[in-house]
Each structure stands twice: as structure tokens, then as C-alpha cells.
């Protein structure tokens, strides 16, 4: 059926009426495809393991925190995971744009330290910036422009970079829970990704853009995402000294230090900038 016709629209109206009238309750109308239809023991055991992991990794929880149970939907388990998310991880993601350019993001949830590295389509690093907490509540920033071979530091009261990238565990799980609740996201089967069992979640954005997210069944954290224009892989590493070191770049030898941070490649200030 190329395109959507009157039949499809009439059928949708009928389906919605069928759904809203509670006709789904009839067991006799259940499809007879597949073999046993009862909840499999293996799946239940997996979810119980998830609950166990969530309880084991929770930090600072209170008795009133929700706890994931085997019967919970992905949405409910994600909401439960929000209160149990461990801050003992360093977030890392690689975002590949349709243009071929790549951004690598690191973030330490505990301190808010973050680092963004931008690469061109050939994989060459062109620019990066990082922020970390400094003395007295200030924030230290460093920016390196690899094309101009320049770099600079800055200290600010509240660095915009400290809130970027926004993909903290809690933010991602909050977004997922909301999307599942409002129907923008839907579970779409299971898949093993890099040896881990994941749940595939399809999302349709407000403008009709689509993306697929793979959620680790144990941690309920995203593993990868493929959208119309971007391709993201996520990793959540232990908060070891080695992983924390990845949050702060080493300035290459021979680069010229500027008074302030260099602009990203291709960004030029207007000619009138700085004139009184």
C-alpha cells in the first residue's frame, strides 16, 4: 500500500475504538503465533538479575525509592533506575554525524567534569574543550584548536561546558522514561550487542525523525543509538584514575598559548567585534 489511503485511516479509527472499548481483554482473540505464550522463566530470571544489580549499585537511596521488579515494564524499570543510578561511572559517547564528522564526549557525573573532542570526516582531531572543578568553586576550562595549533585556558564561575554533554545517566534515563510514557518510544525486540543483551527502543521525534536506541537490560543505560542523521555509541566506564584522566587533555608540544580560549575551526568573529 504505497502511501496512506482512506482505508488505512478508517481502520485506524476502528482500531482506536476497539482499543478504547476494552476489547483487548478477550483472551480468545489472542494470536496463536509462536509457541508457548506464557512469560518465560529465563526472561523473568534476567529481569530479577537486573533488579538485583540495580539494588546492588544504588547509592544514597532511601527506603521510599522505587525498586525494579520482574513484572515492571521497561518504562517502570527505567524510572526505578533513575533513583538507583550509580555515580561511579565515567560516561563516554562517540557521535557520528551524517556529514562524517565525529564528536567524542566524556563526562564524570560525580564532579560534572566534561570533555568534548571534535574530529573531521578523516578522523583528524580539529578542536577540543574540557572543563573541571577548580579551587574555590570556580571552573577551569581548556580549549585546543588543532588546525591553528593554538590553545587557551579560562576560569569561569559557571562554565556552560559543565552542563554539556547533557547525556548523564539520569538525563538519558529520564528522557527514555518520558518517551516510553508518552508513546514516542516503543520497545521493539531484543538484541545482543557486544555480548550484552539489550532491548531495542524505537523513537519517533516531534518532527517525524526516527531513531533506534539499544538499552542494556542489566544497567538500563543506552549502548548505542542510530538515528536519521547521527550514530552514537555509548560506554560507561568505572570511575578509575585512568578513566578520569581521559577527561582532561594534554596540550601538544609546540602549540601557541593564547590569552583566552581559541575559537572552534571555521568560526570567525564579525569584523565589527571589539570596536567601540
Amino acid at each position, binding site marked *: 500500500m504505497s502511501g496512506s489511503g*482512506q482505508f488505512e485511516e478508517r481502520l485506524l479509527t476502528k*482500531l482506536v475504538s476497539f*482499543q478504547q472499548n476494552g476489547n483487548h481483554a478477550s483472551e480468545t482473540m489472542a494470536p496463536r503465533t509462536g509457541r508457548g505464550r506464557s512469560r518465560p522463566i529465563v526472561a523473568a530470571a534476567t529481569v530479577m538479575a537486573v533488579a538485583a544489580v540495580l539494588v546492588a549499585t544504588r547509592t544514597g537511596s532511601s527506603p521510599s525509592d522505587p525498586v525494579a521488579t520482574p513484572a515492571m515494564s521497561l518504562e517502570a524499570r527505567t524510572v526505578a533506575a533513575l533513583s538507583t543510578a550509580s555515580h561511579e561511572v565515567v560516561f563516554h559517547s562517540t557521535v557520528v554525524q551524517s556529514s562524517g564528522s565525529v564528536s567524542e564526549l566524556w563526562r564524570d557525573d560525580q564532579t560534572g567534569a566534561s570533555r568534548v573532542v571534535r574530529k573531521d570526516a578523516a578522523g583528524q582531531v580539529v578542536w577540543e574543550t574540557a572543563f573541571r572543578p577548580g579551587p574555590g568553586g570556580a571552573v577551569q576550562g581548556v580549549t585546543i584548536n588543532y588546525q591553528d595549533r593554538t590553545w587557551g585556558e579560562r576560569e569561569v564561575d559557571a562554565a556552560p561546558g559543565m552542563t554539556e554533554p547533557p547525556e548523564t545517566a539520569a538525563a538519558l534515563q529520564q528522557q527514555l522514561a518520558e518517551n516510553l510514557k508518552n508513546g514516542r518510544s516503543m*520497545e521493539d525486540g*531484543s538484541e545482543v550487542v557486544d555480548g550484552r543483551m539489550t532491548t531495542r527502543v524505537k523513537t519517533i521525534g516531534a518532527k517525524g525523525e526516527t531513531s533506534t536506541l539499544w538499552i542494556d537490560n542489566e544497567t538500563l543505560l543506552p549502548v548505542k543509538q542510530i538515528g536519521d542523521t547521527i550514530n552514537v555509541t555509548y560506554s560507561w566506564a568505572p570511575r578509575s584514575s585512568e578513566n578520569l584522566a581521559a577527561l582532561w587533555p594534554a596540550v601538544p608540544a609546540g602549540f601557541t598559548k593564547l590569552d583566552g580560549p581559541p575559537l572552534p575551526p571555521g568560526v570567525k568573529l564579525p569584523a565589527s567585534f571589539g570596536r567601540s
Partner: protein
Amino acid sequence: MLWLATDRDSLEIFYRRHVAAVAAFAARRCHVAGDIADVVSVTFMKAVSGAHTFDPRRGRSALGWLVGIALNEIREQARRDQRQSALIARVGGHRLLDDSDVVRMEQLIDAQRLSPQLERALAQLSNVEREAVLLVAVDGLSSGEAAMALGLSSTVFRARLSRGKRHLRRSFTDSSTEIAEVIAVL
């Protein structure tokens, strides 16, 4: 997938995402527009009523699940002859068609028709082998989705697919491009 049975917006997203694929699947197996409309209608009605039976953690894909429902309905259609099921009488997908829908679905049936050469080659296969080959090579399902649609374990399904592929090779000649394409994706 209980939201399918309860949430209106989720149902609409789910329906719009899969309706074209289910209709194309039905068009490859039905000969008149009314039958396609009935299969599509009953498939989604059963999906809504049976949403509680779908468990994505079992490696099930929504499309494989829907195709399984549609496949059963097509088999039912063939068995039932002229008698209408209670659900079809209730849903009446064919009664939702207007003239333009009928024309569109007939065009869809034509578009989904296989070449005589491929039809002849597929006719050499057993029913179970043919269905396995069609689901993967023509309907575009993954092996897992197709196994699920047929209610088989992946091992049994792959064995059938492999036999079908082997038998198809016998029909292959240098000029049978479509058969070569089918073999290539199996």
C-alpha cells in the same frame, strides 16, 4: 507491549509504522482487495487484543509477530472458504474499502507479483520451504522474524531455509536473474 492495548497514541505510531508492511505481505498472498483489507484489519485487531502475549525480551520483533498473525489469518481465510469468522464479521475490513482503495490495492497486488520464472522455481519447493524462502527473500524479514512468524525455533527455520535454497539452486540458470537474487539474500 501492553501499551498497544491501552494507549491510543502508541497504537497509532505502531499502526502507521507497520501497516504498509503488513499490507504488502498480504498482497503477495491474496488475490482480491477485500481479502487484503480483511487480513490487515484482523491482524491489527488481534495485535491489540493479544498485546499481553508479546514479549520483546524473548528476541521477538514486532514485525515478525504481526506477520505471524497475518500468516495465520491468511491460512484461516483459505480454510474457511465462504464462511466468515466472527472477527471478520465484526471488523469487516473489506467494508472499509472505497473505490480508490480497491484500485490502490489491486495495483499493490500487481506490484507484488513475482516473475513467472521465479513462481515456477518456487513451485518446485515444498510448502514449508517456499514459505521460509518467501518470508526472507521477498518479504524482507530477518531469519529471527521469519522463524517467529512461523512459530519455529531458529534452528528448525534455518534448516528449512537451507533446504529451500538448495532446491532453488537446481532451478537456477544463467538467465534467471530473479532466482539468483533470491539465492543471494538467503
